[in-house]
């Protein structure tokens, strides 16, 4: 259990993941749900980037001349998460476009009102 104090980056990223998950669950507003999904995304990215960090070593960018390989941090999690950020943006844009279309169809973006209108057959 003492690892919970030294691994503070991972602990905070899991707490952020939980906050994003509850935001995704209990709001009925669609924009709030998309923000919650983005918070979950960034929490996962923070977890991965924290796994690649090594104490007291440089960023993997050669300044001047090449030092030995043991003086740079692990570059793989950084490059994988660079892919993830851009994909997250395109997913967000698609979700927001669907939100606009839902508004044009139902006149609201609250999920409770949408399901009420579906039940009563408002068309």
């Amino acid at each position, binding site marked *: 259990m003492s690892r919970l104090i030294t691994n503070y980056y991972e602990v905070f990223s899991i707490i952020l993941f939980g906050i994003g998950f509850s935001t995704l669950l209990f709001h009925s507003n669609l924009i709030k749900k998309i923000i919650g999904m983005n918070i979950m995304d960034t929490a996962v990215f923070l977890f991965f980037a924290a796994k690649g960090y090594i104490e007291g070593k440089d960023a993997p*960018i050669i300044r001047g001349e090449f030092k030995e390989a043991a003086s740079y941090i692990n570059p793989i999690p950084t490059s994988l998460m*660079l892919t993830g950020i*851009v994909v997250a943006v*395109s997913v967000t844009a698609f979700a*927001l476009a669907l939100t606009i279309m839902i508004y044009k169809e139902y006149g609201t973006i609250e999920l409770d009102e949408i399901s009420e209108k579906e039940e009563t057959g408002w068309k």
Partner: protein
Amino acid sequence: MNDIILKEIGKIVIPYIQIFGIYVIFNGHLSPGGGFSGGTVIGASLVLYKLIYGPEMIKKIINYKIVMHSMSIALLAYGILKGYSFITGGADLHLFQIPLGTPGNILSGGLLLPLNIAVGIIVGFTIFAFYSLFDEGEL
């Protein structure tokens, strides 16, 4: 938008933003940056241009045809260049290899610079297309 202050400040600021974006793309293999962040900066400058001068001004330069054609051409160029590199790298074909150059110069690193430019074009036009589609439903 007919604000004279916005227009005059935009004339000064927008070229610097675009030059900074081009710098970030072209130095992607030497310093932090690369196609994704530089393309986002250039897309942001296009968004600012459209915000200040209105949709009629930018429609002469960047319209639906330009956006779609340049994105498709950049994607195809990426695939063809990298496919060529995979063929010459793996098999023993003795085709022409792109020279790597001295590390530290702008023109070095073989295919890294053209690939960065292709990714930058795709990302920049993506940002611009998102903005104009969300704003008024047209490209």
